[in-house]
């Protein structure tokens, strides 16, 4: 199953997004990497690295980020992996993106299919 990592400056945002996605797709392989070790605001490469490892089942991992250093910290975490071929930061809104990608991955879709769904999440209209 494709893994999903939610990176936010806020631990609560990342955990809340994961909670919401899990409610709709309980079997999804999704992990939160929000805030710093002590819970303060920021992004932490070691937290992101650990989250990637936790959801990586060999089918690829997508990373959803909020903004700013979330992108750069995720890039460093990816560079630290031994095999980073199927690990990708995807530019999509983290709430919609996490919901759509966890639904897609939990029905057994491929890495490419999950990325495709995330591209659609980016242009999804709420009304």
């Amino acid at each position, binding site marked *: 199953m494709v893994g999903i990592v939610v990176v936010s*400056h806020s631990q609560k945002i990342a955990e809340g997004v994961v909670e919401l996605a899990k409610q709709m797709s309980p079997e999804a392989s999704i992990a939160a990497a929000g805030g*710093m*070790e002590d819970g*303060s*605001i*920021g*992004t*932490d*490469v*070691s*937290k992101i690295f650990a989250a990637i490892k936790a959801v990586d089942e060999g089918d690829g991992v997508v990373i959803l980020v909020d903004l*700013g*250093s979330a992108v*750069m*910290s995720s*890039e*460093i975490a990816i560079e630290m992996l031994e095999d980073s071929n199927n690990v990708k930061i995807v530019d999509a809104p983290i709430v919609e993106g996490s919901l759509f990608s966890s639904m897609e991955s939990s029905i057994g879709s491929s890495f490419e299919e999950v990325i495709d769904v995330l591209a659609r999440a980016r242009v999804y209209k709420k009304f």
Partner: protein
Amino acid sequence: MATKSDVLDFIRIYADKMAEHRQELTDYDQAIGDGDHGINMSRGFKAVIEKLPAVYEKNIDEILKTVGMILVSTVGGASGPLYGSAFMKAGAAVKGKGELSNEDIILAFDEAVGGIQFRGKAVEGEKTILDSMIPAIKAIKASIADGKSMAEALVDGEKAAWDGVEYTKTIIATKGRASYLGERSIGHQDPGATSMAYVFQAAKEVAEKVGC
């Protein structure tokens, strides 16, 4: 030339500066950014100082890389990946070295700039760290080429860095949170360029102390 003890001194002095100027950097950041630069940098370098004894016996490259790794997981804001990449790249440039020649020091600075540019995808003139860092390194290179000592070159480098900080007051931010402000960012100095100027100040103080 710089010994391992000089490099460790530089890290300690810089960490002290980040603690000392925590509020000042935060104030600059509050004016145009998210107001956490001083808090983040002092938190990161406090963690560096706590964890540094574990690498005292290692070579300079390992020490610099370790500093970078600690920063990317403890600073929290954009300066974490940027300063972290700078230290990691500087470390990689001086692989296996127990002491640094002037050429090694310049190479480490060049690689550090490259690391920041790669990570932040910025160029000079965008009101970032680079606006004090690049002129400082240029000045150091020019002074060394003129036959000056590293201590003298770092005096010139620090001056160029502060001139760069002044220059950031005149330009519009196009990177990071400050870019949302557009023209309203004019008149304010860049906090990242400021914290970078302290890097050259710390290096200069070490060089003056050891007389290299």
